[in-house]
C-alpha cells in the first residue's frame, strides 16, 4: 500500500513539473529544454533554506518559486532575441549551466554528495507525516497548479500565448507586447516547476544534482508529448504513464541494471512512436 502511495506521490510531483512545462512548449510554443533545472532550483532552495536557515518549509517553497521566477525571466531574456532552434540551444545552455552549479558549487550544495536530511514538509506548524500526508499535500499542490494553469490558459493571456505559438508576427501586429507575454510564460512555468521541486525535496528528504539533468528535462518533455501538448489533462496523464511504466516493469523480473536500461530504451522508443503516429498525444484532439 505504501508503495502505491509512493508512486502516486511521484506521479503528482512530476505531473506538476510536466504541466508547467506544457505552458511553455504546448501553449506558447517556446521549446525550452531547461525545465528540470528549474525543478532543481525549487528543490535546492527548499532544501538549503530549511536545512541551513531553519526556514519553515512553506516559506522556503515560496522563496524557491520567487528565485525560479527571477531566474526564468533572466533565461527568457536571450530567448526573446532568438527562437526555434536558437531557443533550443540557449535552453541547453541554461540547463547545463544550472546543473554545473548544483554539481560544482560544493560549498553551497555539497555537489555530488547531495543534501541529506531535508526536514519533512509542514504547513502552519502542522507536520506532514507518512505517505498519506504527502498524498494530501501533493494533491493540494496539484490543485494549486491546475488552478493557476487554468486561469492562465483560459484567459485572454492564454489566447495571446497560443497566438504567439501560431504566428508571432500577427500577434505583434495586433499590438500585443510579445516579449512581455513570453517572459511571463517563462516566469509562471518556472515557478510552478520550482513548486514541484520543493515538494520533491521534502518528500524524498535527500537531493543530489543527478535528479536535475538534461535527461530529466527530456523526461518531462516526454510526459508532455505522450500526454498531449496544449491540453490541461495531458501532462498529468503523461506523467502517470511515464512514472508508472517503469514500476510495472519491475514485476517483469529483469535484473536491476538491465531493467534501468530497458526502461530508458522504451522511453526513447515511446517518444519516437508518439511523434510519428500520435503527435497530439493521448489527450490531444486530431488537428
Amino acid at each position, binding site marked *: 500500500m505504501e508503495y502505491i502511495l509512493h508512486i502516486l506521490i511521484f506521479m503528482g510531483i512530476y505531473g506538476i513539473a510536466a504541466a508547467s512545462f506544457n505552458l511553455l512548449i504546448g501553449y506558447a510554443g517556446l*521549446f525550452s529544454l531547461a525545465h528540470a533545472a528549474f525543478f532543481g532550483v525549487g528543490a535546492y532552495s527548499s532544501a538549503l533554506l530549511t536545512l541551513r536557515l531553519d526556514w519553515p518549509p512553506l516559506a522556503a517553497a515560496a522563496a524557491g518559486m520567487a528565485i525560479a521566477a527571477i531566474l526564468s525571466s533572466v533565461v527568457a*531574456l*536571450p530567448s526573446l*532575441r*532568438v527562437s*526555434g*532552434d*536558437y531557443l*533550443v*540551444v*540557449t535552453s*541547453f*545552455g*541554461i540547463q*547545463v*549551466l544550472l546543473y*554545473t*552549479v548544483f*554539481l*560544482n558549487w560544493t560549498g553551497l550544495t555539497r555537489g555530488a554528495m547531495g543534501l541529506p536530511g531535508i526536514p519533512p514538509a509542514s504547513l502552519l506548524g502542522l507536520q506532514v507525516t507518512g505517505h498519506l500526508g504527502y498524498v494530501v499535500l501533493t494533491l493540494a499542490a496539484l490543485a494549486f497548479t491546475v488552478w493557476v494553469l487554468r486561469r492562465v490558459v483560459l484567459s485572454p493571456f492564454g489566447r495571446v500565448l497560443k497566438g504567439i505559438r501560431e504566428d508571432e508576427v500577427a500577434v505583434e501586429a495586433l499590438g500585443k507586447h510579445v516579449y512581455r507575454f513570453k517572459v511571463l510564460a517563462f516566469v509562471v512555468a518556472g515557478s510552478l516547476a520550482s513548486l514541484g521541486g520543493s515538494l520533491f525535496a521534502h518528500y524524498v528528504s535527500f537531493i543530489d544534482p543527478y535528479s536535475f539533468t*538534461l*535527461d530529466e528535462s*527530456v523526461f518531462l*518533455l*516526454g510526459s508532455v*508529448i505522450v500526454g498531449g501538448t496544449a491540453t490541461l489533462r495531458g501532462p498529468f496523464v503523461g506523467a502517470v504513464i511515464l512514472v508508472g511504466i517503469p514500476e510495472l516493469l519491475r514485476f517483469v523480473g529483469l535484473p536491476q*541494471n*538491465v531493467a534501468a*536500461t*530497458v526502461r*530508458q*530504451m522504451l*522511453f*526513447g*522508443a*515511446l*517518444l*519516437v512512436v508518439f*511523434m*510519428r503516429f500520435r*503527435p497530439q498525444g493521448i489527450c490531444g484532439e486530431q488537428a
Partner: protein
Amino acid sequence: MALLLQLLANGLVAGSSWAMVALGFGLIFRVTGTFHFAHGSVYAAAGYLAYSGVADLGLPWGIAFPLAAIGAVLLGCSIEVWIYRPLRRLEAPPLALLVSSLGVAVFLNNLLGLVWSYQSRNLPTAAGTGYVLGPVDLSSFQVATVAVGLVVTIGLIIYMKYSSLGLTMRALANTPFMARIVGIPAERVTVLTFAVGSLLAAPAGILTMLDTGVLPDMGTPAVLMATIAVFVGGIASLPGAALAAGLLGLLVNVGIWQWSARWQNAIAFSLLLLFMVCRPRGLFGLKQRQVKV
C-alpha cells in the same frame, strides 16, 4: 607555462575531435534543417563498432575501422529514412523531428550500454607511442586526431565547393523550394547528406576510442559541444563550425588552467549564451538573405 602549453595542446586535440562531430552535425542541420541530436549516438557507435571489430572479431585495424565507418553511415542513414523521413512527409514541424531525435538518442545510448556494458572500452594494444615536443607530451592518437581533424575539415570544404553532390547540397540548403523545382531529388540528397555527415563523425568516434576509450553516453556531451560550435561559428558556415570547435577546445582547456576541469561545460555554454545574446548569427554567420554554405 609548461602546463599551459600542454593544456593548449590538449585543447587542440579536443577541439579537432569536436570539429569532426560539429561538421557532420552542422552539415545535416544546414542542408536538411534537422536538429540531429542523435548524431552523438552515431559518433559513439562508430567507436564501439571499431572496438568490436578489432577486439571481438580480430580484424586488423585497416579493415575494422573502415567497416566501423560504414556502420556509422548506415546507422545515420537508417535514422533519416525510418525516423525523420516519415515525419517530413507528414510535414511535421522541425521541432517534432528534434523530439524524435532526442528519443532516438536515448534509445541508442542505452542500447550501446546494454550491448557493450557501461565500462569504458578501448583496445588494450592501443597504448600508442608518445610524442614529446618541448614541454608538450602527446600520444600518437592525439596527434592523429589533430591531423585527421584538419584533413576532414579541408576535405569537406573542398568537397562542398567543387563536387556535384556538394553543389546539390548547397542548393538544397539555400533554397529548398527552388532546388525541387530544378529537379533536385530532395529525399535522396537528404539521405546522402546524412551519409556524409555520419561519415565525418566516424573518425572522431574511432580516435576517441583509441585515445581515451568509449562510453555509451559519450555522444551527448560531444553533440552538445558540436551544437555550441555550430551556433557559435554561425549555422551557415561549415569552416566557422570547425574553427569554433577548435577555439572551444582551447578556451575550455585554458579554463581548466585558470579554474578547474569541473567548470569546462559551464565555460563552453557561457560562451554559447554570450553569442546567443550578443551575436546570435555567430562568428561567420551572414545576415539573413545572404546565407551560403
